[in-house]
């Protein structure tokens, strides 16, 4: 594998990982897309390089390895399908909450709130009723997109 290809894969992984760590679902989906592109670039480069593998056009020993190409096609189709599903989920989430932020796990927050209260676990207050009141007085910063 050439250095250029390795660098491309590395760059895609870096970008994908960065986007995955965002809270916005749309960015997470793009991140996943980049991540699987990185994996595909690696996969397609895992075989021997050479001429197109069509019987009768050249000596079979000079052919590129056709196997990773077949594999990568399968992988692309799979990631296409799952991306479509994720987009549908994100749209559903946006319909339900008008926000595509990945929410916290409520149960985890409840468990955290049963023990000692910690100033850093400030999200816990969202669960209690008094917090609801204080929310009215002090409106939460909404990260909703302006227009979609």
């Amino acid at each position, binding site marked *: 594998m050439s250095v250029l290809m390795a660098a491309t894969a590395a760059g895609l992984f870096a970008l*994908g990982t960065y986007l995955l760590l965002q809270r916005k679902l749309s960015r997470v989906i793009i991140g*996943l897309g980049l991540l*699987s592109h*990185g994996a595909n670039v690696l996969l397609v480069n895992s*075989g021997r390089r050479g001429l197109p593998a069509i019987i009768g056009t050249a000596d079979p020993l000079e052919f590129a390895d056709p196997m990773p190409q077949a594999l990568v096609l399968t992988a692309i189709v799979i*990631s296409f399908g799952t991306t479509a*599903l*994720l987009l549908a989920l994100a749209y559903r989430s946006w319909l339900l909450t008008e926000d595509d932020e*990945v929410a916290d796990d409520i149960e*985890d927050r409840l468990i955290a709130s049963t023990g000692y209260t910690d100033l850093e676990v400030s999200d816990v207050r969202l669960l209690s009723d008094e917090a609801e009141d204080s929310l009215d007085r002090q409106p939460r910063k909404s990260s909703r997109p302006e227009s979609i």
Partner: protein
Amino acid sequence: MRVLLPMPVLLPLIGAGASILVGRSRTLQRVISLSVLTAMVGLSIAIIVAVDDDGVVSTQAGDWYAPVGITLVADRLSAIMLVAATVALLLVNLYAIGQPGAERSHVGFQSVYLVLAAGVAAAFLTGDMFNLFVAIEMMLTASYVLITLGGTLERVRSGMTYVVISLVASALFLVALAFLYASTGTMNMADMAGQVAQLPSGLQAALAGLLLVVFGIKAGLFPLFFWLPDSYPTAPTPVTAIFAGLLTKVGMYAIIRTQTLLFPDVLPTWLLMTLAGLTMVVGVLGAIAQDDVKRILSFLIISSIGYMLMGLALFTVAGIAAVIVYVVHQIVLKTALFLTGGLIQQTGGSTRLSQLGNMATTAPMIAALFFVAASSLAGIPPMSGFAAKFALLDSVAAEAQWWILGVAVLTALLTLFSVAKLWIGVFWAPATEPTENADRAGTRGRRPPWMMVAPTIVLVSASVVLGVLAGPLYRYAERAAADLLDPTHYTNVVLAEGGTP
């Protein structure tokens, strides 16, 4: 015999297609699903009988010779996993039909369920790394649909975490496959086993570690389990039950297969042991902290994965045999426990311990089922859990790994504690007044339909039967473990298969 091998994969896929075509008639869909799943149980029993005679049965799809063709192979490990999985799939499908809600209101349920069944069967039967990837993807894609069934806010939220984590694991799996292919030039596992042995040891360790991370995410190993208790409990009961019983175990199967066939003794024992110990302890501590029936059970899945890794890390016949017994026991038992959890939810109107209570008198049948299943999980003597855990601890003691033995015993005690907490909260505590919202209170005291109770009874009694038959099961597992540790027969059979080039 060789004709039968592709059937457990083909039949459910054909059934899934047919199920969509007859989408208007729920009855026809059910007939298709149940007959396909019953046929799968029959086929897997036929396969296990044949495999126990010959050791390994293999076939090449498309009749291409081995390293090139698409290999399907069944050895003793995959055969027993297939039997346990198909039985669980059939019973959970019956339960889903009985339960109001999940299956009845969704046209696609039966079809997607069959795709899941095909994916699980393909993962157990494939002899090719890339097809393992495809099989796991097939299973996971079906599971994405099942976990977000209905598309309520809660399910979309938890399903999202699950889908994103699974896709990251899949991308890593592809990377591992690319590295494997680049270094060995083959995807056939039997062929790869020979090639990997000639690689430099550093490269071997890197590949083994990467695959461990990939399958560790799917199985729920220690640092990578966080998605599991977050996403499983919100799905409908039959879906959670089949996920709990099968999906993590497919990950565990893949770990066992790759670490024994491709990378025997490559990863250091202390590393696997540490991961196993942390998985056990963190899982059970998480279970103790929770206040929800399904979430407690979800954390206990993680704890049980730690036990399996502990046995595997020994790389001895006794250790791996114990793991096989334990996996089979866990497939049956975890499914049974989640189905019982669904019965509790149906009768009590909630899964929260604080809102349940006094069900020992109001629902003695469910209490009896839960008691049997939970004591088996905690490892109380006559049950299958005792036999499986004893075999595991015995094999660990034989290798003189004392500290992990201590951790395992401590985890067993803590498991008993968390199960006791569940029991007291649901069955003994005084019943709380139905507060919350009116619609929850409305479902209280409703008797679950017999179609939900019957499969649960069968699964719970199956877990008891496993305890009674622990002797023959363990001897079978010993033969399977001996095959795994000495894969020459496996590779010979796969690579010797005839076919036209």
